[in-house]
């Protein structure tokens, strides 16, 4: 069973939560008196950039206030996140493709459903054209036999 790095993950999350709380307090009070740059220490030696940006996205996705936060609010949270400037720019510009590229990801294929019901799809498996041609030949033969 997988146990993961629960302690370090929890610590990262608390740090990020503090940071984001700071961001919302900052926007509520309209000033920078609750600066939070030093509160964040979520960067780890192993794969640190990925850990950082994924935690940030997870928190963004889970937080009722941040999910639809303004660009300024997200920008403030990012300011203390020790994230590569290019990643920050991609996040702020909501550029998913750029973010994928920066994290070494290619666009995924998201198709997991065939168009035809299984019974008919079986005939086309692996070589649909051949299957369709066979079917047409059979139909032609049947027609000929019927005439």
């Amino acid at each position, binding site marked *: 069973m997988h146990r*993961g790095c629960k302690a370090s993950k929890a610590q990262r999350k608390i740090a990020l939560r503090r940071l984001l709380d700071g961001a919302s307090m900052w926007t509520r009070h309209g000033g920078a008196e609750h600066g939070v740059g030093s509160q964040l220490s979520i960067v780890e030696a192993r794969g640190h950039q990925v850990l950082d940006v994924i935690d940030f*996205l997870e928190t963004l996705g889970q937080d009722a206030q941040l*999910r639809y936060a303004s660009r300024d609010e997200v920008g403030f949270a990012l300011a203390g996140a020790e994230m590569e400037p290019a990643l920050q720019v991609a996040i702020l510009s909501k550029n998913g493709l750029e973010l994928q590229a920066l994290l070494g*990801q290619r*666009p995924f*294929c998201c*198709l*997991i*459903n*065939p168009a035809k019901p299984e019974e008919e799809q079986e005939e086309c498996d692996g070589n649909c054209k051949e299957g369709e041609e066979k079917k047409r030949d059979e139909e032609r033969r049947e027609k000929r036999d019927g005439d």
Partner: protein
Amino acid sequence: MEATSAAGSLVCVGLGMTLGSHLGPLARSHIEQADVVFAGLSDGIVELWLQRMHRDVRSLQVYYHEGKSRMQTYRQMVEAILAEVRAGKKVCGVFYGHPGVFAWAPHKAIEVARSEGYAAHMEPGISAEDCLYADLGIDPGRVGCQHYEASQLLFYRRRIDPTAYLVLWQVGLVGDQSLARFSTGPAYRQLLVEVLSGDYPLDHEVIVYRAPTLPIQSARIERLPLGGLPQAEVDMADTVVVPPARALLVDREMRAKLDLLDEAASRAACDAG
């Protein structure tokens, strides 16, 4: 019901559509407690997120190749999953959205696992359909809602009810008979419009919709006339929603029959009282 005495097991769970927003506690627990996790996701960044939850996440993306039959891809996915179940592992298949909505491989993997005597089941997730209802303000209970894989409208003769919503999936590759392409094109969508024009005027407004996969994104909601669909940019992740074109038609004959039943019921109630 099949006997479930073998050691391996399979659960297919949904990760939802948006990173961080939709994953339920039970699905997360299945992921964390599995021996092996297989990932059929829609975004590489979401897969990185899943890798945080488990050390052994195996991507199913490796089976896709343009030009290769996706049916073969789907079977390979099922085989990869089943090989670990047969090896006695506790396997979790993680799919984007809902693992059982427009998703052949999870259903098949569960069916095969059960037929071989393994415990196997599915946990629901938040699908693109669910997001669509929220983002577009559609209640499928109001006038009804039909869902079709778009190509089925070209391959088969289907009856569309234009008094209900119509939701078309995989429009970006409509008409692909080979199952080997990731997109078709305007000429194929023109054929789809030809079919739909039997029930809807060409100036009828349709909506191209895409749920966000990352929390930095917004849903794509693009309104255009039906006749403009061939020229629109539509890819494999987009869904087309066709709102009703006509009002519900009153069935006077059936209502009269219902009135008679109501009267009889009320007379019986009076007599009993």
